[in-house]
């Protein structure tokens, strides 16, 4: 069964675009063009509502207030365009889950929608974590690449890999890694960290490309090594 999304947007061109981009991403979209009609829709049947605030008829914030007043817990993503009245702040206070400011690119809206609907759950300390070809078993203090154990990692190296594996795909700053992994008594510097990271990368062997340097920030562990990593 496809995921149903209710789109409340009065602008024809924008509404059509949002409907199309959501449909393209596999969602079943029902589009309502004014507030009064949106107020009559049974919102409980939808997985998410994309709500424009400036609507003819019932105003977006009033719709939100009414839904939350009836204890309808459907996630609501607000489309905001006004800077002056802090519509989105009021919407968040009224129980909106997220907002996207106009003008937006499809990617941003889709990312927000997906984040609301299919947030990947990452559990910590629950057995080994697998990221691409790398499998990290923090409890067993060992790392496998393509199922084969790597040369033994030192405590600092394992800590670095552990911190990166907690948030795969996210860049972690050198400062954060130094603070989390290096001994503060031994005057751990960012240069020391770089040395440790290059050793980890070497020990990962064929999967070394998954541990990427992020310009200006630090490092990230990605599932697939690509050409952008340097």
């Amino acid at each position, binding site marked *: 069964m496809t995921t149903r999304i209710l789109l409340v947007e009065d602008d024809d061109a924008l509404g059509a675009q949002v409907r199309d981009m959501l449909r393209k991403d596999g969602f079943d979209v029902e589009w309502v063009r004014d507030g009064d009609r949106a107020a009559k829709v049974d919102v409980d049947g939808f997985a998410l509502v994309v709500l424009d605030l400036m609507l003819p008829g019932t105003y977006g914030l009033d719709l939100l207030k009414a839904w939350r007043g009836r204890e309808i817990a459907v996630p609501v993503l607000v489309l905001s365009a*006004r800077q002056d*009245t802090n519509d*989105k702040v009021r919407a968040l206070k009224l129980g909106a889950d997220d907002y996207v400011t106009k*003008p937006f690119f499809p990617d*941003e809206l889709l990312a927000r929608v997906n984040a609301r609907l299919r947030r990947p759950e990452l559990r910590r300390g629950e057995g080994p974590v697998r990221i691409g070809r790398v499998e990290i078993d923090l409890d067993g203090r060992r790392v496998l690449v393509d199922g084969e154990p790597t040369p033994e990692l030192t405590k600092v190296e394992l800590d670095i890999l552990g911190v990166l594996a907690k948030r795969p795909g996210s860049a972690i700053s050198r400062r954060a890694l130094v603070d989390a992994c290096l001994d503060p008594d031994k005057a751990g510097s960012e240069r020391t960290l770089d040395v440790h990271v290059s050793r980890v990368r070497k020990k990962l062997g064929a999967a070394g490309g998954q541990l990427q340097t*992020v*310009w*200006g920030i630090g490092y990230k562990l990605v599932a697939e090594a690509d050409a952008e990593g340097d």
Partner: protein
Amino acid sequence: MRLRLRLAVLLVVAVVPFAIALALLQGLLVRRNVALATGEALAARLDGPQHDRCEESPESWPERAWLDGPERDRGPNRELRNERRRRARALRGRGPARFFVYDASLVAHRSDAPELPPRVRRALQDGDEIGWGMVDGPNVHDHLLVIARVADGGRCAFVATVRPREGPPLAFTIVPALAVSVFTVLLAVLAAGPLVRRVLRLTEAVRRARGGEAVSIPIEGSDELTELERAIAADRAELAAKVDALQRRDAALTSFVANTTHDVMIPLTVLQNHLLALESRAEPKSTEAELAAQALGEAHYLGSLLQNLSAAAKLDDVDRPLDRVDMDLADLVARVAQRHRTLAQKKRIALDFAAPEHLAIHADLTLVERMLSNLVHNAIRYGEPGGHVAIVLEPAGASGFHLEVLDDGPGVAPADLARLGERRFRSEAARSRQPTGTGLGLAIAREVAERHGWTLRFEANEPTGLRVILESASA
């Protein structure tokens, strides 16, 4: 109270010495009249046989008969009689009078005669007929001495009389003067009371009106103060009308900008998406694809400019407090990075960020998002293809943060670094798109930081590019 105090001091300073001077002058005039009358009487009564007797035995003169004489005067001329009686009374005075005889060179015949005051002595030697002055009795200057010339020479040339001073003592004259002064001052201060209270009411009304309260200026009575009250009331009414007109115009303008912004954002979103579609259909790296990507950048710039205008309008209203809410700065960093990712990809710029999972701050969400968007947009806009932009957010201290936006673009000349985001550049910046990367966006970023009590610094990044550092106060 100060006005009344000044009035009282002024009255005391002016009235008291004046009253005392008047009292003293009155005493002086009384003594002078008494002295003149006494002198005349002496001279008149010492003619003929009495003067001969005086010449014979000046030490024992006068006899009692002479003193009592005029009482028994039974002259035929009534006027003359009255005149003589008057003189006798003047001679006797109110107290016991004593008489002394002096020769032509003003030497007394009796040893108990008072010493003549030098001024009196000189006046008589210069030819005056009558002299008078104060001499000491039991107390200093408590007796009046009057001396009259009764002959041009001989042993009985001058006759003097000494008697207790007439009239009340000086203190008795000054006390009523002081009493009158105090009464005057009290009366004046009391009379000034209503006036002072009116001034106070007027001041209070003007002060409250200045604080923005709708207060009517009190108009009382019909005097000069009333005129002042009327003038102030008229002035305030005119000012209020002007302020009201300005506020209405300002509100209309703000609302117009907000509505226009809102109305433009929708077609702008549509336009961006059309351009994206156009670009994806064009041959990769073709002119069409390049043009579509460029147009996309311009569309984004337009949206950013409009949002910055709204933010500037909000920031210009200094009296309006920030709409602070509890927010997650880490989430905002991710959001802003995501929002600019499409744009960065089109320019082949790698945009990355690092942030802790959560970083709670209490700030104006709209303004902080605008600030961060401006910093990131600026870095992308002036970056070169193949370049990098990085956002790094880290906690600092107990509740602070440290945020950096780095790029490896062309950067800014060291001399211009300190001037980036200066407020006075804002109006010029709004009208020109400067190639150095300064503009409305950075000025807004600095103002947002200032209003939150944060610091925003611009540094050169090594080996090239710009490093923008935002720190909270507790960082």
